[in-house]
């Protein structure tokens, strides 16, 4: 504790509302309106190393956008996100799989995109396959998987390839009840690890109460409140009920 893992300073993220144009459209409608949607407006906070921060907010308040930006998928339009050189992985529903390739190839490729070397991933492949309970399906194309298998594999990859910072976006409720139990236990082990910093986005109050040290409440892209778990969750619940 004490050492800073994530610094988010004055971050704003915009989405330009732009649907794919066609040649016809760009010729006839010369000036297209440049609409900007502000997903995150001037957010600042910092997370200490080993801390578990829960993020709450109603749908569309910018939680996922924030996580994707911390994961480095896109840079913020304004402000700085400083990870102090830590490795980071985002655990979200439907991690980027290539449908035509087999589960095994996808494990290796996604692992490498998370910043591990080919060898490091190869060493972990068996562990990941065992955890994901896919059995013989692992050598079939991902396109043939059921949605449950898909998300189980995604969870297994990010859970077994441990990075310094883990961003968890509503994935604690995938699979059947047995897998849920297993993933919850695995998650708790990771969270207990003092070296792993975790950001969790969830709508489940019980999960957050059990796992988090602090809660950040985002409302319409701006910070509403940050602080003790009990307190913030209570305020949030009151806000949502009225």
């Amino acid at each position, binding site marked *: 504790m004490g050492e800073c893992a994530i610094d988010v300073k004055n971050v704003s993220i915009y989405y330009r509302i732009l649907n794919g144009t066609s040649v016809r459209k*760009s010729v006839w409608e010369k000036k297209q309106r440049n609409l900007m949607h502000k997903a995150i407006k001037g957010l600042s906070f910092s997370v200490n190393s080993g801390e578990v921060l829960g993020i709450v907010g109603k749908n569309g308040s910018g939680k996922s956008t924030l996580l994707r930006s911390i*994961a480095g*998928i896109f840079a913020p*339009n304004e402000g700085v996100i400083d990870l102090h050189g830590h490795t980071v992985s985002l655990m979200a529903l439907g991690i980027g799989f*290539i*449908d035509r390739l087999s589960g095994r190839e996808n494990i*290796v490729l996604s692992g490498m995109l998370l910043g591990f070397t*080919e060898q490091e991933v190869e060493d972990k492949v068996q562990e990941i396959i065992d955890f994901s309970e896919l059995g013989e399906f692992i050598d079939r194309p991902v396109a043939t998987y059921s949605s449950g298998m898909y998300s189980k594999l995604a969870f297994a990859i990010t859970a077994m390839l441990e990075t310094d910072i883990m961003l968890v976006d509503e994935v604690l409720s995938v699979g059947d009840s047995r897998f849920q139990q297993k993933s919850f236990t695995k998650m708790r082990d990771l969270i207990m690890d003092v070296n792993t910093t975790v950001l969790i986005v969830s709508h489940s109050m019980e999960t957050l109460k059990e796992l988090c040290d602090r809660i950040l409440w985002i409302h319409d892209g701006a910070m509403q409140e940050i602080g003790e778990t009990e307190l913030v969750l209570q305020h949030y619940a009151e806000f949502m009920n009225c």
Partner: protein
Amino acid sequence: MFILLGTAATLLPPLIAWGEHIYLKHGEVSGKKRIFYFLFYFVFLHTFILGMAFCQGVRGLTIRTMTIDYEIKHLGAGLVCAFIAPFFYCFIFETDILAAGVKGYGRRVLVDIWKYRQYVVRSARAHLREEVANSYLDWLWWVIEPLCMMMIYTLVFGFLFGSAEPNFAIFVFIGLTMWTFFSRNVSYGVTTILANRSIVTRVYLPKYMLLISQMLLNGFKMLISFGIVFFMMLLFRVPMTCHIVWVIPLIFELFLFTFAVGTILMHFGVYVSDLSYIIGIVLNMLMYLSGVFYSMERFPEPFDVLLGKFNPLAFLMNSTRDALLYGSMPEWSVYFSWLCVSTVMACIGLYTIYYNENAYAKIS
């Protein structure tokens, strides 16, 4: 024809340089400056080219007395200079944009390529294996497919249309191999980002890595095809000369040019949804203008030289055939001109992709 070429030689180079300059400055140029830049490039380019001609001993230049060959040279030199000049201009006078940009992005490209090298190779290998995973003949398809294509085209163009280049089968096969590499990568490039949306929106990677991976895949297939070419040359007893080594720089240029075109189209493919249709048509047209199945000499007078030099694919194919079959060197002036142009285009493509990469990830 004279007038057309003359006008093109006068107007095209400054127009290209002007457009490129404005693109490099993100289009933030006022109206007055725009006129200034156009005039600047007009004067500069023509002084430069005429000066070059003067140094080579050309005196008393009039449009009337020019030969077509000379006009083509004039136009070619103008276009190449036009493509490179704005880069140097910005490099020297707009240090904040270009010198810093080249330094920063150049370093980033090297770092990224080193960092993602394993991914690129692994991804190409996985896709290659996947392509043949469920077929009976397995990897034999990589040999059978191009061979069958070659046979079809040899039959149709050799017997039906009576093309009679010596070693016609190999002649077609070389053209076909190089053309397939180019067209597959380019048409893949247009759809890359949208087709790989599941990766692009979920994890960071420099987007052109996807294109490089695809190019490795197609490059591997091209390698097999060239292996077959070599085998066929032994079979048909084509005399081997030391000029075979020129194939290596020629293939390198093919890679560079394909990469440049691919990256640029990759960017526009995201925003212009009907681009893939347009590219399909353009590629088809280009195929017939590149002489995949026939020698360029079949085009009427000025066009054979014009296309042979100004169409990089025709140039590369012809040079490769020359090197392999007829034992002669490529035309180095054309080679280096296209090398410069491809490099500048690749820089522009890479820069465009890095500059817009946030936008790609947000399209969902």
